[in-house]
């Protein structure tokens, strides 16, 4: 799959729906992820966006980066806003008040807006079965407010509210398994994706849009600022996250797990961790502990996908 990325420019539409000129930092993996997801979405969408980096960099009055209809309201309510949009379109189409056939409602939020403060609204919307796609852009912390930890921050990462210190390992708990929480809602489609694997991301977005009902996409988004990694390495970092098993790519269609790529042997997690300042303080023991846990989680995932 790695090699196919060479051909991607020919597969993707050249139209930008998340247009250049936005204020994201150089090497921002989240901006790349949003841009690529939007390419895959097409034009017949309405987007609801949570407060967070992507909202802030794209929508400073009186400018906008969005060429598709887009709304931002608050931080934690994006799935609920999407519920209202989907229901409104449904009712108006049915009653003949308006005709907006086939419009896909898409909610977008960061890991904080999804796995922490927005979890209740998301759970409600998934349970109610709205026909919408929810995309979580996971850069593993509250980046917009200055790199504070979220429940999606990985174990050991030093952030401004989980600083590594004399008596602190950094973030002390394991990364919350948000895709599994989405799966537990029995929704038709859940997948993980990475902009570093564009073709895979593209096909997952297409599948998610085609689903009639809630779909959940969890996209790892490298943040060089928060991860303290080199901006020019963002795409490679995304690949390393996948190849080390720290962020495996898979999809869950109607409850059935399927790995998106075959990794007979995982690369050592150290290859990924050592490129990031947020893990610089980790001792050999801690890295081994992370390796053990990643192996264990990956084996469990493989079993589910078997």
């Amino acid at each position, binding site marked *: 799959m790695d090699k196919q990325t060479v051909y991607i420019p020919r597969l993707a539409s050249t139209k930008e729906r998340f247009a250049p000129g936005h204020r994201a930092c150089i090497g921002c993996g989240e901006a790349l992820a949003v841009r690529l997801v939007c390419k895959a979405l097409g*034009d*017949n*969408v*309405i987007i*609801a966006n949570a407060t967070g980096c992507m*909202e*802030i960099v794209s*929508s*400073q*009055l*009186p*400018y*906008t980066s*969005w*060429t*598709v*209809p*887009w*709304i*931002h*309201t*608050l931080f*934690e*309510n994006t*799935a*609920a*806003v*999407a*519920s*209202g*949009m*989907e*229901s*409104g*379109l*449904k*009712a*108006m189409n*049915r*009653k003949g*008040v*308006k005709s*907006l056939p086939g*419009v896909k409602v898409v909610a977008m939020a960061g890991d904080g807006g999804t796995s922490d403060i927005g979890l*209740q*609204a998301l*759970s*409600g*919307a998934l*349970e*109610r079965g709205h026909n919408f796609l929810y995309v979580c852009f996971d850069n593993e912390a509250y980046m917009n407010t200055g790199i504070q930890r979220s429940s999606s921050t990985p174990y050991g990462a030093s952030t401004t509210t989980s600083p590594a210190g004399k008596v602190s390992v950094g973030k002390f708990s394991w990364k919350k398994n948000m895709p599994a929480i989405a799966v537990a809602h029995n929704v038709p489609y859940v997948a993980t994706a990475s902009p570093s694997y564009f073709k895979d991301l593209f096909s997952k977005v297409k599948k998610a849009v085609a689903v009639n009902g809630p779909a959940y996409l969890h996209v790892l988004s490298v943040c060089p600022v928060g991860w303290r990694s080199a901006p020019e390495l963002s795409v490679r970092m995304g690949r390393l996250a996948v190849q080390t098993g720290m962020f495996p790519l898979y999809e869950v269609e109607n409850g059935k797990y399927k790995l998106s790529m075959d990794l007979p042997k995982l690369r050592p997690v150290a290859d990924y961790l050592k490129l990031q300042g947020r893990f610089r303080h980790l001792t050999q023991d801690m890295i081994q502990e992370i390796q053990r846990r990643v192996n264990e989680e990956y084996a469990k995932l493989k079993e589910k996908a078997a």
Partner: protein
Amino acid sequence: MAIKVGMEVSVAMGEMVKLASADVIAAYPITPQTHIVEHLAELVADGELDAEFIAVESEHSAMSACLGSAAVGARTFTASAGQGLELMHEVLYVASAMRLPIVMAVANRALSAPLSVWGDHSDVMAVRDTGWIQMFTENGQEVVDNTLCAFRIAEHPRVLLPLMVHLDGFHLSHMIEPLLLPEQSEVDRFLPPNSYPLSLDPARPVTMGDFAPPVIYTETKWAQEVNLRASKEVILDCWKEFGDAFGRYYSPVESYHSEGARVLLLTMGSFSETAMLAVDSLRSQGVDVGLVRLRLWRPFPFDELRQAVKEAEVLIVLDRALSVGGPGGPVCSEVKAALYQVEPRPKVVSFVGGLGGRDITVSGFEEIIKRGMDIAEKGSASEFEMFGVRE
């Protein structure tokens, strides 16, 4: 021809939302609002109202779903009260600032702690500055009539603001009253379809809800102020046309035997009806007293209020909410502010009472008026008096 019914006020409100053909209702249950949304859920379940009923998982999500629904141009209704309204708090500001015409019924309820499901105006006052149009109602007919007016005002192209219809929890929401419900054809004539401009539509992409740096935030807030103030004109037009069509006229401040009266009592909501009886009783005893009722709470009707009290020497205000550690009653504070620059102006006396469902009877109001007159004459050591505190 209107249809005469005997109906619970909450149910009648649901009937009006049906007659208004709402597209989306997103609501979360809380006493004493429940009967409104339960009735709507039933109407949708029976196919009598063609709408999407979103049984959300919280009030925060209820109001958020309303934002989404209104932003795609759907006619949108919700209802809440007390804690529910408080949980919506931050979303309420967004609804008004983004000019989304949502209609919400608030079955006014006290705020915890201690927990109280009963009525007062603590919830209204906590959302006073959220930028919504807000009106009080006194009886079931007013609820029916103003639910219809609410959609027309909120969705008016010169307004495009969310609107709260306040009805006192239990004291009004749960009453069974004789009511006149309009017919569908009458409603259709009075209420044009919702034609929200610049809704979210792939054919005409718009960006909504940008963030504002300091260089532009002030201007957005001023625009909001100008817009909310200007809505009064449309509200007055709507009430006038409603009166012409249905024979019942409404105004921002209503008076009862207030012309030339030396002493005036000011109330809001359903307690006004009891206060009228107290005024009747005192007048028969020779007390020169009248009543003014505040119907429009936002935009605040400065001119109408000044006009209504200009001849009085004493104005007694009864608030059903407390500004703890502050000047007592929030409505009284605003009344005082409205009158401060006016000459001559009545002496204003503040009472707080009727909290958490505590009734104020006719004799209670008589007591308030007499005590108020006494304070106006002799003065008082405190900013306000709490009525009916048991020792």
